[in-house]
């Protein structure tokens, strides 16, 4: 379905990665209602898509919710508009993981305790693979 591309380049790349059309969502909240960890998800799926609709992708990428999503795909299965949030969350994770790091090399010794708290484990592994050795 052809829809005008989103204004924000970040949202556009999330759309491209996930294959989902953000504008298709009409904010009924069915995804949030069915999410098995909906109480813990912050932001919950419908709100996350709302942030993307408003071009506020940065807020979503910094959130914890995208890492909590277990990709059970209940949201997408019951969505009346055919938008699959599990794929969007996956795309958001990919965007975070692909962010460039400032220093050229990464080793376990360079990681501070603070980083350990903040950086997702997947990101550690990915960066070790890419930037160590």
């Amino acid at each position, binding site marked *: 379905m052809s829809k005008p591309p989103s204004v924000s380049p970040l949202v556009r790349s999330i759309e491209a990665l996930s294959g989902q059309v953000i504008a298709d969502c009409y904010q009924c909240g069915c995804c949030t209602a069915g999410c098995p960890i*909906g109480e813990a998800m912050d932001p919950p799926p419908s709100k996350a898509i709302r942030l993307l609709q408003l071009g506020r992708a940065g807020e979503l990428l910094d959130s914890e919710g995208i890492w909590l999503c277990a990709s059970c795909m209940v949201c997408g299965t019951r969505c009346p508009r055919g938008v699959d949030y599990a794929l969007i969350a996956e795309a958001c994770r990919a965007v975070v993981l692909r962010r460039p790091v400032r220093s050229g090399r990464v080793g376990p010794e360079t990681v501070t305790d603070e980083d350990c708290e903040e950086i997702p484990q997947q990101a550690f592994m990915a960066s070790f693979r890419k930037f160590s050795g």
Partner: protein
Amino acid sequence: MAEGKSRRPEVAGPEPAGTQSASTDKPAISPVSRRPRVGVFVCHCGINIAGVVRVPELVERAKTMPGVVVARDYQYCCSDPGQQIIRDSIKADKLDRVVVACCSPTLHEATFRKAGEEAGLNYYRTEIANIREQCAWVTKDRDEATDKAEDITRLAIARATHDESLEPVGVTVNKRALVVGAGIAGIQAALDIANAGYEVVLVEKQPSIGGHMAQLSETFPTLDCSQCILTPRTVETGRHSRIKLHTYSEVAEVSGYIGNFKVRIRQKPRYVDFDACTGCGLCMEKCPARVEADFERGMGKRRAIYRLLPQAVPNRPVIDAEACIYLQKGKCGVCAKVCPTQAIRYDDTEKFVEEEVGAIVLATGYELLDHEKMSAYGIGRVPDVIDGLAFERLLSASGPTQGEVKRPSDGRVPKKVVFVQCAGSRDREHGMPYCSKICCMYTAKQAILYKHRVHDGEATICYIDVRTPGKGFEEFYQRATDEGTTYLRGKVSKIFRQGDKVMVWASDTLAGRKVELEADLVVLASAVVASPDGVELAKRLKMQLDGHGFLTEAHPKLRPVETLTGGFFLAGCGQGPKDIPDTVAQASAAAAKVLAMFGQDKIFHAPTTAWVDEDICVGCGNCELTCAYGAVKVDLQRGVAAVNVALCEGCGACSVACPSGAMSHRNFSKKSIYEMTEEAVR
């Protein structure tokens, strides 16, 4: 009168049935017999056309085109002075064809053809070159637009050059109407037509009339009792001297054409003599067989011999053969024993009756979405999840619980009721993509009525958007919230049973969180869908349906109660979901259209129909298979196809399907198409 065969126009044109005599523009019997004299009139349409197309240049170019004797332009050709210019020019320049380069023919073709006719030019010799919608509005560059406008005009001139003088086909009208479906739409249409003095045949598949409205408790936004406002209409219909009622019957077959239909009606066996029965009801009291009542939508039972409701019109029971012990096992016969008038007829069979009518109103109505389409909502599996119509029966004073709200599983009064809106509506992935229009209001009404019945009850409505575009609707919605109904914004994801409770997974999108609700009863506002029986009938009648089975109107704005097939009209939810006031208004509108037809002794049909060159036709029957209107039939005796011009809508499908080129289209012949194509690729 139209005959079932066509003639070759070169030999003899169609019978002059119109007001104009055939001699009006005698010289042009055949286009090749003399040089055509074409007048071209280019309309500015304010700046709509002139803002893009260089009109003076187009006029100059038109003057050089073959056959053109005069070309002029005017600000608004559709205005009175604009039409006068055309009329004057026809007389002064002795024009025998006119081309108006202006807007779409759907808007002003009739205007200009009429203007030409007033100046003595045959109605079918004026052609439109659409240089607005197909050129000015879709082209930015002025040079390109002017070139394209020239091309379009040249094509129209090529077509006009081959136009013959045609006369409209006159058809006599049988001034009786058939109304299919006796819900409130069919009842209203039938009453309006009958009260105007014409006979109506009203066919209803159920044993009595009233449709879904007879199932409703009270109606929004006034909360007047549905039965109380409906029964005066059903009684009037039942007693009307000009309404012939066929209940427990279905339309089996319709043949013929506008003004002259033959209808075959199948009457299902009632097993009760309609004339002998007095409707005393003794049989229904004594019948030992009990089955689920469809009318009560799973909320109550009925006997094998039954009527839908105590106020049934006609008040005559029927026997459900599948439930009747005597008809299944040959034993019982209680109803026959107790009947004081010996009206039971176990040997009854289905019968067919024929009716002749001139117009048909289709009021085939709606159903609610199949439970299977909403598997996540548990309906059909969880007993305390019911649909909106079932809840109407619980609220109805004449319903199975006499208006007391009791849940189906254990008969307890539910203290917490969750109403789920958009159950299948606005859901293109699992249900129907459209809005069912009535659910926002009836859910608000049901919540209000529930709170009236159960004072300490809690009503929660899960909604996506509340839509209240109607008189008094917004106020009614406010009333629901004022009376303590909780509105929770979010679509429900899942409904399931937990112990004796029903759990609802909803969300509160305004607070941005997931919500789990515990309910005693859940009411789904299931999507309104076209009645499956209506869809089946419409397909047999070759009516046009939209992608969801709703009947398609001839024009969404300007011809909302007509269909594309002459003589067929629409009313009620068969055309699309709507509430009672809209349904009644539409039914009266359909009746008005029928009456407008009955006001004439003859109706005239456009003669731009298909015709067969019998010298070429081999009678292969491709045309007959292709025709959507049943207008073409192969005459088996003579081995050639014959066109019923009264039925033919001039769509042209048959002439495309014809392998030998025998089938053609008056004033859109193959020759004119070739020449237009030649002009287009020049």
